[in-house]
């Protein structure tokens, strides 16, 4: 298997279970776990050049667990996961980063934090310096703060490259 090739089904399943141990679903905060199918799909699509290190971390996990996580009871799964975290190293750090990255950009999770699931600047945003608030052409944007303008009564149109 080339280092950046896709994970095997067994590795993908271990990754899913491990991600769910790292970040479990919570009814208290109304968020999915990192083993959620959409988040898992994002993780798989995101691996890219990190695949080799993620695979290495999953190999370490398999050695610590003794067999696939799916074959273990919850307590032994968690023990193996915590042993992996304690072991640390570049491979484990990479796997952890990928899981966290995909989890905390999921729209449901972002909303649960009281944030809007969008980039900091919309594709087209009108920044009304005179009135000190932002709004979008669709009118969906809400006033944001009361920035004082040094530019006078001007309107700045911010457009992403390629648009």
């Amino acid at each position, binding site marked *: 298997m080339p280092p950046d090739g896709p994970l095997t089904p067994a590795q993908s399943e271990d990754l899913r279970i491990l991600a769910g*141990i790292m*970040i479990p679903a919570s009814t208290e905060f109304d968020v999915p776990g990192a083993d959620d199918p959409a988040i898992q799909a994002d993780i798989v699509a995101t691996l890219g050049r990190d695949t080799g290190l993620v695979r290495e971390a999953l190999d370490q996990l398999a050695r610590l667990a003794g067999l696939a996580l799916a074959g273990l009871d919850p307590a032994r799964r*968690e023990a193996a996961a915590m042993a992996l*975290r304690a072991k640390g190293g570049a491979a484990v750090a990479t796997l952890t980063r990928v899981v*966290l990255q995909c*989890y905390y*950009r999921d729209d449901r999770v972002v909303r649960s*934090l009281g944030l809007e699931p969008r980039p900091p600047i919309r594709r087209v945003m009108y920044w009304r310096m005179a009135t000190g608030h932002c709004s979008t052409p669709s009118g969906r944007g809400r006033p944001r703060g009361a920035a004082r303008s040094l530019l006078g009564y001007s309107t700045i149109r911010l457009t992403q490259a390629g648009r």
Partner: protein
Amino acid sequence: MAAGAAYYDADGVEQFQAAHVVVLACNGVGTPRLLLNSASGRFPNGLANSSGLVGRNLMFHPYAQVYGFDEPTDSNRAPPTCLWSKEFYETDLSRGFVRGYTFQFGRGVGPVAEAVASEAKGLIPWGAGHHAAFRRLSGHRLGLSAICEDLPEEHNRVTLDPVLKDSHGIPAPRIDYKIGENMARMMEHGVARGNEVLAAAEATDICVNSPILYGGWHLLGTARMGADPARSVVNEWGRSHDVKNLFIVDGSLFVTSGGVNPTSTIQALALYIADQMKQRLVNLFD
């Protein structure tokens, strides 16, 4: 005089672009790499390198970062970097080092960056306590980074790697760099002052990254500017001392790093050199 530039095109075919004037803008690693790889019978130590200084005096901006967590910082509503202090910028020998640093204040990061950083610091657990721990920290970060002025030291340098080559077989750059004693003391000072600020703010979970690994590694100083050809690579308006139609307009010109981010200064130098070239057009190569 330089005749032009040889390069590989997108198909891997070597091409040559003739030029009356050659302007290098590859910054503190790419520029010395190109000059050293341009060695010839006439310039056995690399182009524009009669001083032996091409690649030497490599400087960065090691950042000494301290951060903690306090009241909500509205970190999702604006860029995180929001305040600068020059209180420790100028030399005060009572501090135990020369030159100084800019203190850059930041107010948090987005959810992904917070999760990755705080998990790595052990502030966010795996498992049931994860969500509560994350929410206690997210949007509450207050940090200070000392942007420390690196000084030129000839042993900090870019050379050509004797083994590693790029996909065209061109020698890769090799970097030898060590944080000096002056810098180490400056960073310790920045960490101590940062801790004082955060303690006064009653911040919790204070963490130190000194140097930070992911930023501040600006590439400077490896083709320094100066009037003396024995002590510099280009003259005071950017022209090589050795090759009269070769100019450099990037961070390699810097003779010290300054304690600020360098892009604006690089841009100003490029504009200044372009203006000098225009004004001296009649006798540019004299």
